[in-house]
């Protein structure tokens, strides 16, 4: 298994993908370059390769997922790996096994890479130091979803070429969104201007205070002000449990205030693109008829997800082989 791709992997020094926060801009560029190679392969319809032949990728999801899990599975299989999906409800986790013991068990049965989604923030960071297998974070609590942020960046770069100075507006439930958190880190590192647009109850605390621990962002409560002159508008999915209660009076008012529709999109730059991590609540975050607009790139995001995940698995495999 030789390094047959035109990528300088000496700049890569990660055994795990825990968070975009850990990656330097140069490393993010490296992921983008590797993704480009993978994407070309997918487009040439020569999907299958054997770089990960003989390796076992285990997906361990403590939360429901269709696209992320499927995307990882296809990515791993495209690279020739064997994939095992662990269903949490039927495993010994349901019997109260600790996370670290579950992971040790999966390593013992031969996992080389573990793709995990966990409902608690920081779960991956807590277990990674004890792991032999490479760990990829497929989402932890409200904290991070690095592969989503990287596929979003790849998608943006296809349309915008460079992120420097771009106005990227993220709209919706920022507070509980790991997608938003990882995007804030990733986009800030790449030089974009991040604008968050939400009612105050759906924003995390402390955004106004200068801190070395979090990127500085612009906060807007009015979607029209936020969108004006935007290069990208990313709407987030409003989870069912947030739709009414003490955070929002109801879905109708949220829709009136924060939905992206044709009229509001006209306020953005003419070539601005519209993104959504999916699955979309049609006519809530996004006006349903907007989904047919060519500027809405939701399906490109999903397709790019496979390439990004192939790239990350490949980088981790190389790191393991050449380190």
């Amino acid at each position, binding site marked *: 298994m030789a390094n047959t791709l035109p990528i300088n992997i000496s700049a890569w020094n990660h055994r795990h993908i825990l968070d975009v926060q850990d990656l330097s801009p140069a490393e993010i560029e490296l992921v983008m370059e590797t993704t480009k190679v993978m994407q070309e392969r997918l487009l040439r319809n020569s999907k299958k390769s054997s770089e990960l032949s003989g390796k076992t990728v285990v997906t361990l999801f403590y939360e429901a997922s269709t696209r992320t899990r499927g995307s990882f599975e296809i990515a791993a299989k495209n690279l020739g790996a064997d994939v095992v999906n662990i269903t949490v409800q039927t495993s010994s986790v349901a019997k109260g096994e*600790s*996370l*670290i013991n579950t992971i040790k068990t999966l390593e013992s049965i031969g996992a080389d890479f573990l793709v995990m989604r*966990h409902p*608690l*923030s*920081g*779960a991956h*960071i*807590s277990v990674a130091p004890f792991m032999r297998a490479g760990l990829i974070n497929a989402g*932890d*609590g*409200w*904290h*991070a979803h690095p592969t989503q942020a990287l596929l979003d960046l790849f998608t943006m770069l296809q349309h915008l070429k460079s992120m420097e100075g771009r106005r990227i507006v993220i709209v919706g439930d920022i507070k509980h969104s*790991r997608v938003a*958190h990882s995007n804030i880190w990733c986009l800030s590192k790449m030089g974009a201007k991040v604008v968050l647009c939400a009612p105050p109850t759906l924003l*995390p*605390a*402390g*955004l106004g*205070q200068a*801190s070395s*621990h*979090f990127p500085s962002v612009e906060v807007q409560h009015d979607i029209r002000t936020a969108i004006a002159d935007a290069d990208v508008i990313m709407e987030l999915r409003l989870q069912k449990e947030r739709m009414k209660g003490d955070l929002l009076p109801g879905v109708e008012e949220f829709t009136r205030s924060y939905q992206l529709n044709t009229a509001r999109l006209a306020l953005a730059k003419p070539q601005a693109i519209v993104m959504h991590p999916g699955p979309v609540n049609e006519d809530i975050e996004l006006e349903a008829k907007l989904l047919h607009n060519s500027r809405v790139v939701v399906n490109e995001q999903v397709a790019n997800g496979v390439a990004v995940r192939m790239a990350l698995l490949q980088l981790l495999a190389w790191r393991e082989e050449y380190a």
Partner: protein
Amino acid sequence: MHDILIKNGHIIAPGEGIDQIGDIFLSDGRIKQLGQNLPATNAEVIDATEQIVSPGFIDLHCHLRQPGFEAKETIQSGTKAAAKGGFTTVCCMPNTSPPLDNAPLITYVNTIAANEACVRVLPIGCITRARNGEELSDMVSMAQAGAVAFTDDGNYVRNPNILRRAMQYSLPLGLPIIEHCEDADLCDGGQVNEGIIATTQGLCGNSSVAEEIAVARDIILAEHTGARLHIAHVSTRGAVEQIRQGKKRGVKLSAEVTPHHLTLSEEALLGYNTQAKVSPPLRTPADIEALIDGLNDGTIDVIATDHAPHRIIDKQCEFANAACGISGLETALGSLLKIVHNGKLSLTTLLAKLTCAPASILRMKIGSLQVNAPADLTIFSPHKEWIVDSSNFVSHGHNTPLEGETLHGQVSTTIYSGKVVYRNT
């Protein structure tokens, strides 16, 4: 029991205004004489040259975990840790299993302590049965069995009318009600201070307002009932201000702060460091400043450890599932002397907060170097450098955020009731 002569120490007893170089003679478990060049006749001599000799420290707030959680701590191991940290009196919290909500359980703790503890143990009983916040516990019977205060620590008494009744019912006993002030609704499930540190880790925030509202409500109830109220582990600037105003109005109010809230900020939690997970959570540098101001102006009366030992697996897990608390008895003095060494608190004030001030809340004649007071003393080197290594803890709880840290100041000898109960060899 043999006599002990402590020679040439820097004797500081804030309650008596003593601050002098000299000797102390102990006999029959009591302090017999303070002076210069006292004769050693048949006594064991402890050379305290260049060391501080203080009344033994009193901890109003620690968790000894017995009965029920003996894997975390026992009365025996917890009091050994106390002695090592210079504490000769510890008040143990009732959130055991079963909780200390009736007289036989208070007697149980006192019986175990009589046989196995190496320092004085003063049990605190529950305010409500099973700490459920719904029915009053047997406060009178517990007081008769030796309970020194009442608390549902770990829980705030959520229903204000239950706390009002508890204050009224226990009024004839004259014992303080100790409250863990955090309004559960306002905490909103948050386990770390609300702010950018919580945000960057994607953790649910616990706003300082949850503590401040709880403190304000309880002060109003104490004012209304005339009961004695003691606020446990104050952590926010706003809570300090509530207490300051309450004291100005003459409410029978006292308050404590922990070594960790005085010395560590929320940044200690970065990287999901479960060792720094405590309740209430670590706050901001501005809160720390306000807590130190509160100590200096008398708003905060005492320093208490909130020693909360846990097993390794209680901390080695996902952050949200990790237990709250620090095994703090053995690092308390070294941590607190940082604030003295950086000039923000005088040594005398620090010692007052650890000795005469808690004694006065307990209304006991301890924490003193008066002739005939119990011979409870702590001798320590205020500058001695040492590195925290939890594998050397005598507490069963090795949970500390200070692992590997260099501290300045260490206890050399602890004497309880005229007997050496700890000696640093």
